[in-house]
């Protein structure tokens, strides 16, 4: 039995930025190839690159975790 992708299969599809923004809005982060972005912006555009780095994103999730409240109940048996 043959395994893997059929010949000519491509996991990517094309959509214009204008049409995509109709679906996800202008502020949604869209994963793109690092190399492609670097070639587009040049090597020195580090602040913009940081915005899309995975590390930065997981840090955001982590700080969100710290902000979320732990559920607890405190009982004082002396008041019962």
């Amino acid at each position: 039995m043959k395994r893997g992708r059929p010949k000519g299969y491509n996991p990517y599809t094309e959509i214009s930025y204008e049409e995509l923004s109709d679906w996800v809005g202008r502020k949604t982060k869209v994963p793109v190839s690092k190399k492609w972005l670097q070639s587009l912006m040049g090597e020195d555009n580090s602040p913009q690159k940081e915005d899309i780095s995975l590390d930065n994103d997981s840090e955001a999730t982590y700080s969100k975790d710290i902000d979320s409240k732990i559920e607890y109940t405190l009982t004082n048996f002396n008041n019962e």
Partner: protein
Amino acid sequence: MNNYFKDLIGQTAVKKKLSFYLDAFHKTSQAPFLLMAGAKGLGKTEFAKAFGKNLYNQDGEKRTFLELNCSTIKNNEQFFEQIFLPLIADNEITILFDECHALPADLTMAFLTIFNTEANSRKNFVWNDMSFEFNFKNQTFIFATTETDKIFPPLKDRLTTIDFEPYESSELSEIVKLCVPHLKFTDGVDELIAPTIRGNARSAVKRAKEIDLYCGAKGRSFFTKKDFEVLCDQVGILPFGITFTEKQILQTLNSCGSATLTGLAAKIGMSKTSLQKDHELYLLGKNLIEIDGKRKITSRGLTLCKAL
């Protein structure tokens, strides 16, 4: 031995073990790190609270009891910031980590260090350049879960397990009566009620509430066999305490002879996991079905099916 748990029914072995640790606590001011383990509704949290209620601070005041739901703890930082520093550090307190199988991995690792105390009652835990002091004479730690297999084994090794057993029919009957002390059960109706409770204390409390509502609506102070028949019909209480889904499983197996788990899940319209965890185990425990490669109804199940 002192009777610390006189308000709680059943769990004789648990009571003995916890009483032993309470007696020891009153001499040494230290209790082991306990792990309450057992199926849902058996009273793990209730016993942990009752245990905590019998712990006293050095000034003779009853110790404060903090109950945490571990599934809401995300990481070390959140725990030390929100719980340890404001509530535990420098305080005399009992802490119950409920659903402790859901502890995050980094806190589990921290607990491995913290609870590795040898004979010492104090432990300094250093994390992120900060030092947190644990004093086990002032702080008592209790863990509880239904899923002990999901606790990291080295952590489980550091805890003293308290195993909970299913309740006897007579104990369930006692729990029901204890919950509605203002009601009188006549003509042996309590013997009919107990077998319809699903083997745990929480179900007994629920059944007591239904009886209380029934009697309250009728302005009654007593409950008879006839009343129980009416209540069963109204709120859908089935023999052996089975649910309507379980009734459907029995009827399906009765009509088709036997079925695979996938086949049965498709017929009932539920996921396989839910079918296995929530219903099959109970039916197996009651000897109403059997699994011999395929699911089959037993003669006991057949008799029940005809009576339904």
